[in-house]
């Protein structure tokens, strides 16, 4: 295995490179994760639920 070590400058560069923007557009939506609480909120605010489902959590590793 020939793996180049990461020096301090490269570490900081890579870490900065991989960090996402402060809030991407999809993150400006306040996604609820508790379905029961969301249903109660939907009744109270007279709104429908928009449910986004994936195998794996949509806000995580999918």
């Amino acid at each position, binding site marked *: 295995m020939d793996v180049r070590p*990461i020096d301090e400058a490269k570490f900081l560069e*890579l870490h900065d490179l991989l960090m996402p923007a402060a809030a991407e557009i999809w993150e400006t939506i306040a996604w609820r994760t508790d379905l029961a609480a969301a*249903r109660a909120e939907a*009744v109270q605010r007279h709104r429908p639920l928009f*449910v986004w489902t994936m195998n794996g*959590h949509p806000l995580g*590793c999918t």
Partner: protein
Amino acid sequence: MLDRAYSFAEQDLAATLRDETIPVALDVHYAVRRRDASGAFLRRVVYQRPELERGHTQQGFYLCAADGTLYEGWNNRSVRRLRQRLADGLAAHRARGEVTHAVQPDPAIDKKYTRALPDGGAVVEVFSRVLDGTWTKPPTELGALRRAATGRDHLWIARGELNALAEGVWPDRLGRRIARFHLIDNTRGEPPMWTARERRACQFAITRAANGDVDVTGRVALVAKGGHRGYEAALRGAVVMRGAALQRFDLVSCGDHWGHGPFVRDAPAGRFRLAVAFRLAERDYAARIPPQAARDRRRYLAAR
């Protein structure tokens, strides 16, 4: 990742979801299996989609009322279709008038499908990206988004591991957990996690400064059975503890990856550079979203 980068990347759609709906994100694999009121509600909603009778995936989008009436249900990445379905479903909801269905709290939540952060643990955000590689086919519009995508997950650090870090000791179990479950190419979807046997090398070392801050270095070699997929990488990081509280957990892995899993095809040809970065969680939802590998919570935390 396509929904994040494509379906929900339009400002007007985001505004509609924020202002006219109650938006919910769920892991349907778990949520639909729950034997409690929330699971029963979700099953009622999803099985109103007629195509599900033919064995279609339950993944997708559902616009429904709090009493379970489904207005629209579909599984398609088209932004045009999302816009139209939202408009149609919202019109149907308005036409129906007030929904006064009483929602009772779950009398007994099915704990089999809930996965909680261990008491006293910490949550770290994980981001992955392909830095360079050679793709053999020209990308489609969505393929180009996949190739530039950032993979996301969350890492859990247990209280005992935090205590070890506070004493300047690197917990081997944490290193194994990072290697097996987080040094993966999840930029285009969920790949298989590495097994204990596939973890051929996993070495971490730390240097503790006089003020207690810790520098981390490491190297891993992760190779699937048969050698068709692997990742060989170096790691470097900085950890800051104040007492038993984690103040900073910045870590980077960078190295050569090759191959792909069954659900993350269209990897670059041959070896390509894959980087994975970690930081103490900043997103408010991070603590509510378990690591993907924590579906088997015991295996994830033990990380043998």
